[in-house]
């Protein structure tokens, strides 16, 4: 018979079970293994195999086909002297730094406004309104912002002309000096949905009494913000920041759609360079090595993320 999990740790049966020999227990559970066959096979083939292939092939020169020979750590050394990669890392660090501040401050601000409302119904509707841009497919965010930055008929330039600042119109994505700033502001007034929901959730769990007693003690909006709301949502804020870092490190569709790393390679980021190495230059070995470096960086972030999110998303 299959052995079920009981909530009470029933002793007799399970002790006898665990004493019987392993092959017998495996045989008894055969249908369970059959049930797990498909998912396990899929994960082995489509997840574990490529992951190990990346680690392994980062030590090889590989064009994705027949050309395949061992070069040891050469790809990693190359990264150190690769100018494009250095630009990519610098860009990424600056970009992540800026985005983390923006993607935390903006939703916190909106959430703070919302929890200050006395009307529960309005709070609910504002939450829905700010989540709404989520229904726009991600790629459309980028395409719409490409229109906003369009040098001929873009929203930004037209807006500048409208208020008489014609001199400031600019090819925002075409100038190496402005391209990273332009990219950093993509989706700007739209709240990052996830971070917004997490922070709002955190703020909403602060007990009403805390706010009331603060009000009785004469704390105004600002005091309350700095002495109650921010300290009490530290976990959620941290989580929002880590999530932004994780998203920004691995997602490069923004860069691919908006500039493809250009002009030149002034808006290159490591993940985009990985993509181009593999699919434009057929350097699958080098691409894998970049992947490994990103993986190690993100691993550290993910471990922190799992620690923090265990507490913060439960609300």
């Amino acid at each position: 018979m299959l052995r079920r999990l009981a909530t009470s740790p029933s002793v007799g049966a399970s002790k006898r079970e665990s004493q019987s020999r392993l092959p017998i227990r495996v045989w008894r559970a055969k249908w369970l293994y059959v049930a797990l066959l498909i998912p396990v096979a899929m994960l082995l083939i489509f997840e574990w195999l490529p992951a190990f292939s990346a680690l392994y092939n980062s030590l090889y020169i590989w064009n994705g086909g027949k050309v395949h020979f061992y070069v040891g750590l050469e790809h990693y050394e190359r990264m150190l002297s690769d100018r494009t990669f250095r630009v990519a890392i610098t860009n990424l660090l600056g970009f992540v730094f800026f985005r983390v501040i923006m993607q935390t401050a903006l939703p916190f601000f909106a959430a703070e406004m919302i929890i200050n409302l006395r009307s529960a119904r309005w709070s609910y509707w504002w939450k829905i309104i700010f989540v709404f841009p989520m229904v726009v497919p991600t790629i459309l965010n980028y395409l719409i912002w490409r229109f906003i930055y369009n040098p001929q008929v873009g929203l930004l330039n037209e807006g500048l002309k409208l208020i008489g600042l014609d001199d400031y119109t600019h090819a925002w994505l075409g100038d190496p000096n402005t391209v990273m700033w332009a990219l950093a502001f993509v989706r700007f007034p739209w709240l990052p949905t996830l971070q917004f929901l997490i922070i709002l959730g955190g703020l909403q769990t602060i007990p009403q009494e805390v706010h009331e007693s603060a009000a009785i003690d004469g704390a105004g909006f600002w005091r309350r913000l700095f002495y109650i709301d921010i300290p009490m949502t530290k976990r959620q804020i941290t989580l929002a920041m880590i999530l932004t870092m994780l998203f920004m490190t691995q997602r490069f569709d923004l860069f691919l759609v908006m500039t493809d790393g250009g002009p030149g390679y002034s808006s290159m980021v490591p993940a985009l360079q990985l993509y181009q190495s593999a699919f434009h230059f057929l350097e699958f070995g080098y691409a894998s090595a970049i992947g490994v470096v990103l993986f190690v960086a993100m691993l550290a972030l993910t471990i922190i993320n799992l620690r923090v999110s265990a507490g913060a998303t439960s609300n």
Partner: protein
Amino acid sequence: MFKRKRLRIANHDLPFQMVLVAFGIVTFFPLVLVVITSLKSNTQFYHNFWLPELPFQFGNYSSAFRIIWRYIVNSVLYSGSTICLIACIASVAGYVFARFHFPFKTALFLGFITLIMVPGVLTLAPRFVLVRDLGLVNTPGALISVWVSGGLVLSTWLMRSYFESLPQELFDAAYVDGAAERQVFFYVSVPLARPMIATVAMTTLISSWNDLIWPLVTITDKDKMPLAMGLMQFSSDFETDWGTLFAGYVISSIPLLCVFAVAMRQFISGLTSGSIKA
């Protein structure tokens, strides 16, 4: 319907409401402009950038729809099959992990959740070679197989924790009534797990619907492109035909809008649970 009275703004709320309204206007302004522009011809657009202008060019919508519908249908098919497969496989796997003891259970489960640490960028290039060698390039199989296996990691975990949280008494009652394991699964567990299945479906929907990179490397035929990739193609085909372009953008937002309108709560829970695998 809500009583209008309830939505009246209290004096205390007024300053916050004003800030929120300003914020809301800035948020929706680009979207409104896209809708306005989608109803203009190019001449109208160059003549008057900001305001709507008569006559409205509804023809933009029909010419955009002639191109876009194909991508939407493709995406519905791809994401739909991905969701069905994940819902079936993950509920069985989650159930097995939650309700039974068997040798190597911990090891197998670790084989699932360790993958949460493995980011998509690491596996992108080797996975493409693998899929190419399997002969799946330019077939729906390339997308569905990878989306399913990627989604299984998180979904199995979510389903397992959900099944573990169900009270043992429910199962005992079914066993006492003489239900076989299969019946307990189909008639007790799955109906009870419906909210979690909905969450899993939404997480899968949002991530597969928005995935751009993977279709970009595996799909080449225009007829087979899912929406995200099709939109990129569409935007370069209609680069300067602004009205049609934006009409296409509006049309392509409608499917998720409908899902959002019908199942807002599940949509939001799907969003947040996706955060664990970022």
